[in-house]
């Protein structure tokens, strides 16, 4: 029991239950399972970004460019499919592009040895800028046969995107916590110099982590395209905040070396329930943003305090 309570996932789990209680007190529509499941498709994209972000943050870095990568891949795949590429070819092209965009971040961080927060702050602007130059204020339509994945359900009214998210989370959770590569990511985040002298391929691990983040951003872009039916350059704006908040709230240390996929997923559902709850209660978008921003700072603050207290003991 004591071991269970000291796990990092306890905090988001408790908060999640509290948010459910608060949400159901706010509105009788909130606890409608069908409504919740349908709404969940809105947060699948954030979830995919958060999964990639978990790897990046555990490795001791940060990726602010995820939402911009999503927007750029969404615009490019919409253009490709619009200019006659088949749907599988367009999807493959988008995924490869995401891998390259993320890999470029990784290259600048690992090879040019720049801090990840400035690199990804710059590429956040660059990737969004390319999308803007590409489409301007137009919106690019997607072929009708590609649209509407979020309307498809498995038995029990479970939307397909939610299944995709859970499968990706489980597979990559196993990769992070049960494979050699995963151990390398933790090791890198705990002490980079020590990892290097222990003979770990630190450069390769770093580039892979950022490339993975790009790949998942691309997958998010495909799901978003299918959900919205059109792509615009300002798609997914600000999603990096929700993704980072989910990871940190899930118990990952912003200094690296600590964090689990289960924690991220619980915190993601917490952020989603909060957003859905605020939506039901008619809270304006800007206020929602303020709540999420404050939550991020408070989550890190709480994590820091907990570490300090346990260090004192």
């Amino acid at each position, binding site marked *: 029991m004591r071991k269970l309570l000291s796990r990092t996932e306890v905090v988001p789990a408790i908060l999640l239950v509290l948010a459910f209680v608060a949400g159901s007190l706010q509105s009788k529509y909130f606890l409608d399972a069908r409504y919740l499941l349908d709404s969940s498709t809105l947060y699948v994209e954030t979830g995919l970004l958060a999964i990639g972000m978990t790897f990046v943050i555990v490795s001791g870095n940060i990726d*602010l460019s995820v939402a911009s990568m999503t927007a750029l891949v969404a615009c490019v795949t919409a253009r490709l499919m619009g200019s006659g590429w088949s749907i599988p070819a367009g999807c493959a092209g988008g995924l490869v592009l995401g891998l390259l965009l993320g890999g470029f971040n990784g290259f600048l961080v690992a090879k040019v040895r720049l801090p990840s927060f400035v690199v990804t702050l710059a590429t956040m602007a660059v990737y969004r800028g390319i999308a803007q130059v590409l489409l301007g204020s137009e919106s690019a339509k997607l072929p009708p046969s590609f649209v509407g994945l979020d309307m498809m359900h498995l038995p029990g009214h479970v939307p397909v995107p939610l299944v995709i998210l859970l499968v990706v989370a489980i597979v990559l959770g196993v990769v992070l916590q049960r494979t050699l590569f995963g151990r390398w990511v933790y090791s890198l985040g705990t002490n980079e110099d020590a990892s290097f002298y222990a003979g770990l391929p630190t450069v390769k691990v770093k580039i892979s982590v950022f490339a993975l983040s790009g790949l998942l951003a691309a997958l998010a872009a495909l799901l978003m395209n299918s959900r919205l039916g059109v792509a615009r350059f300002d798609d997914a704006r600000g999603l990096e905040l929700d993704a980072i908040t989910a990871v940190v709230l899930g118990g990952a240390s912003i200094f690296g070396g600590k964090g689990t996929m289960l924690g991220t997923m619980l915190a993601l559902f917490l952020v989603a329930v909060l957003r859905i709850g605020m939506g039901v209660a008619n809270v304006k978008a*800007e206020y929602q943003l*303020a709540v999420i921003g404050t939550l991020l700072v408070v989550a890190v603050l709480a994590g*820091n305090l907990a570490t300090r207290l346990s260090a004192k003991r």
Partner: protein
Amino acid sequence: MRSDAVRRLATLRELGTAVLLVAVVAAALSKNHQFLDVKNLNSILLWIPLLVVVGMGQMLVILTRGIDVSVGSTMGVAGIVVGMMFRDHPGLNIYLGAALGFVIGAILGAINGGLIAWAKIPPIIVTLGTLSAYRGLAFIVCKGEQIDSNNIPEGLTNWALLGPVTIEGVTISWLIVWAAGAAILTAYFLRSTRTGRDVYAIGSHPEAARLRGIPVSKVTFLVYSICGALAGLAGVLYASRYGFVNPGTAGQGFELTVIAAVVIGGTNVLGGSGTVIGVLLGCLLLGTINVALAVLGIDAAFQTLVYGLVILIALTIDSYLQRLMGRLAVGT
């Protein structure tokens, strides 16, 4: 010997920015011979002051190896609150308004600084959080209502239109005077005060600075407070420049422009090096690029891309110079 090499490299870096500036002007001139006419010079001079004021604070923060991405939202909050004061109390002294903006900014900056200096949360996380939180705050205080142009006193908007000197139709506006004041005070602070030297020391080597007895936490706190205060002042200057304040758009995305100006001006994101002259050159360069894009008929859609690329290029150059410097230091 080593400090000599460092100084030479710093000068080289500023020279690089100046050369780039000349190149942009030359390119614009070759496409459009009227580029340096009165109208364009005035629009460059109108565009730069806000950037300089916020850039000075951002430079201090980056010198300590930090970053503040919340400056745009701080501008928004200060602009909105001061705008509301002008709306609800017509006849309020405009200098009092500017002072109020400064104080509001200082408080918001102090919140960032406290969380960074004493709660030890990384600057990017704190300011990413407050970027959203302060933007929400701007909406909350004004209930989503824009401050319209008829609520901004004429004396304030005149800061952008009039000035002490006009040379052949080119106006050196009062906004420029404000910016110059901020730059001179920052230069004095960095060069001639003990705390100013501590700022460089912290950025060069935080651990060594602590061991040497520098109050690292206090100086860090101060630096973010100053950065917020200048952003708050810039919020009032924004009201002067644009004549209205919208809670959603005032200062929105400005952090990117400011960071681009500061790093292209030679302030190293790894901390410890950067000068006021460099940042001023960076602001001038960005202002010129901005007007040049319009003059050359390049779509405004390119703006974000250009700022991002500017940051990337500056980072790569700095990283290269840093390694070169390391090699020089080992060689001597």
